[in-house]
């Protein structure tokens, strides 16, 4: 039987013992010089052996034993590597063939799948029930934060007659509801063609959108749609969804600072994530129903969108794109229909003019 020269550390001190190593059926034998006062004699079974580095011909091989985890054996002889490979082939398995690596890969894949599932299905489903749990006081604070962020830099348009006209429109719609929510409706001096519903009944219409309307009924339709979002508590659901997604991405990237700044990001998150199709459909349905009950024409909404659509390729196209993109396809809205109504106008001419020029 051949012996191989090696160096042994017993794991109790850093001393180096020169030893002879043998490979036989029982296991790996380690024996030191008989005169050595600290006599070394070990028999390591092949199943307990562990390689410290990936084996290579040109570097000394390092070994340890799971029953004596602090001890180290180091061999310089290339012949030993071949001998060990024959006796203990399980040490030389690579990649996925190694049981631990395979197990870890399965765990990682599984957790990855779970995270994707949670983001895709869990977060949207949970956001509704969670939103209902949020106390009103909270919602009001969140609403105020989001509104301030949205309005940052933009003036709130207020003109006695114009504001009165807007309030009149809002009152007319809320009167038609069984349990009217408390609403804060305002116009902001921004050129974008857009309107937003935010937590706690905050609704902001941009000047750009107001300018694109051609009748008070169209403004009423936009307002009814946004009230629909408020009624279904969509804004808060979005905030919850944003929080959930933010939390998961933080978990993945491990970026704690992002989590810490989450409060400040709330407004941004809300704007980044537009309402999904289902929410828009719900708001549309609610809006149409509300208009009908308030004795206002439901066709105005369809008309307004059709006009925006036609204008879209024109110069300030991208302004309009934003609003259209987040809403159901026009064809779908047309199909949903909307009859002309021969009721009284939503606002008289004077009030309508005041509303159109509220920002001037």
């Amino acid at each position, binding site marked *: 039987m051949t012996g191989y020269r090696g160096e042994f550390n017993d794991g109790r001190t850093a001393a180096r013992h020169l030893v002879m190593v043998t490979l036989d059926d029982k296991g790996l034998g380690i024996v030191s010089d008989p005169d050595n006062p600290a006599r070394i004699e070990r028999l390591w079974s092949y199943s307990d052996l562990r390689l410290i580095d990936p084996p290579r011909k040109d570097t000394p091989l390092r070994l340890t034993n799971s029953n004596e985890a602090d001890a180290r054996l180091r061999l310089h002889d290339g012949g030993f590597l071949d001998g060990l490979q024959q006796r203990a082939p399980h040490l030389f398995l690579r990649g996925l063939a190694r049981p631990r690596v395979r197990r870890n890969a399965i765990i990682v894949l599984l957790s990855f799948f779970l995270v994707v599932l949670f983001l895709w299905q869990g977060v949207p489903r949970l956001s509704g029930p969670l939103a209902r749990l949020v106390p009103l006081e909270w919602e009001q*604070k969140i609403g105020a934060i989001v509104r301030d962020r949205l309005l940052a830099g933009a003036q709130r348009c207020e003109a006695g007659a114009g504001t009165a006209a807007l309030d009149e429109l809002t009152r007319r719609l809320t009167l038609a509801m069984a349990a009217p929510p408390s609403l804060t409706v305002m116009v902001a001096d921004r050129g974008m063609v857009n309107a937003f519903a935010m937590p706690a009944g905050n609704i902001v219409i941009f000047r750009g959108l107001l300018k694109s309307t051609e009748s008070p009924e169209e403004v009423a339709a936009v307002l009814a749609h946004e009230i629909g979002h408020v009624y279904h508590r969509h804004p808060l659901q979005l905030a919850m969804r944003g929080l959930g997604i933010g939390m998961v991405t933080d978990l993945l990237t491990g970026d*704690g600072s992002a989590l810490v700044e989450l409060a*400040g990001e709330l407004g941004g998150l809300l704007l980044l994530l537009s309402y999904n199709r289902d929410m828009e459909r719900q708001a549309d349905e609610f809006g149409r129903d509300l208009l009908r009950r308030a004795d206002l024409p439901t066709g105005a909404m369809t008309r307004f969108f059709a006009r925006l659509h036609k204008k879209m390729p024109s110069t300030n196209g991208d302004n309009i794109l934003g609003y259209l993109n987040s809403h159901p396809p026009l064809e779908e809205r047309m199909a949903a229909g909307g009859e002309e109504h021969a009721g009284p106008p939503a606002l008289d001419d004077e009030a309508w003019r005041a509303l159109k020029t509220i920002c001037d």
Partner: protein
Amino acid sequence: MHESLGRSIGTGAALTTTDSLPSNRLRAKTAIMNDDFSAIARSVPPRLEQRGRAVELLPIVLFNTLLNILTMSIYRFWGKTRVRQYLWRQTHFMDEPLEYTGSGGELFKGFLAVFFLILLPLGTINNLASVYLDPDSTEFIVFNALFYLAIFFLVGMAIYRARRYRLSRTRWRGIRGAMVGSSAQYAIRYLMFWALTLASLGWAYPWMQVGLFKRIMEETRFGDRAFRVTATLGPLYRVFAICWFGALVLGLGIFAAIEYLTTAQLVIEGMVEGAAVPSWISSGIMLVVILPFVLMLWMPWYKAQEFNHLAAGTSFMAVSFRMDVTVWNLTGLTFFNLAILVLTLGFGQPFTQLRTFRYFCRRLQISGELDIDWIQQSNAAAPTMGEGLADAFDLGAV
């Protein structure tokens, strides 16, 4: 099979003196050893050497990058471990390689624990505060101050705990390292020293560096043996004073130039008639803003001195250290590492780690007789998971 066995070079158990082993005795023992072992057993000078090569690191880095992208960076714990295994086993002390025994799973567990026990509660509290407190109120200001103090404290803690984890997973000849102090106490020092440094316009910085280094090194163990730090403050303050006043002069120069140019610009545009004299208050504020940046320009010079001074003031058993870092090669190292990071979008970080490792191994000289046989295994408790905090705050070079 026993005929060619040699004898061990010195065995701690056979010796009775606890002081340093006479070196001639060691040599005598080596001399009577069997010829067969002379090749392995020749005495080697205590020297640190990094033999890693970028070519060998490349496949690891490429594989890690791919998996990081595929797993949305969750793989980073395992990838980091593979890089460390490589860097450690290529680091040789007295011709014998180090060993890294940490695992990706331990890092992942550490991360999860910190995320759920610290980051999530902190984030929630911060969220609640910004919803409930009026941004202009004193309560909010007090809350914010406390919040950032807590973050600073956690950063100090993270530095210490990451080091504890790494040392406990670092072995040489089977003996592992350890940190034996309290991370909370270190974090308090860290917080206080930084507060002092800011309040003193930087003047407490050398004191902090020496104080924190001393604390960390004296609580560092290899096996059961401690490091000793006797570095003084005097020589560092001499360098720092030159840098600080140099920065002040340079800062004033830049400041004056900016003032002159902006005033001239305003005069040209007809906005100001003649040269407007800036008020003392705005000048002061501007100077305070400029000063740190100018101080940074001098930093490499001070830093090089600091490395050398701290190393020279450190000893381990009967061994002393010397470092010869110079401004130019330190700047070169920093600059190229930065270039690598920028050009590889951060994925090339392991290469910068290899370069830094190699640089410091090459620059460090160890002298004196090291009585290795006396070093016993560490009995300090080793953490079961690691570095969650350091990961959260993006700390730690390796």
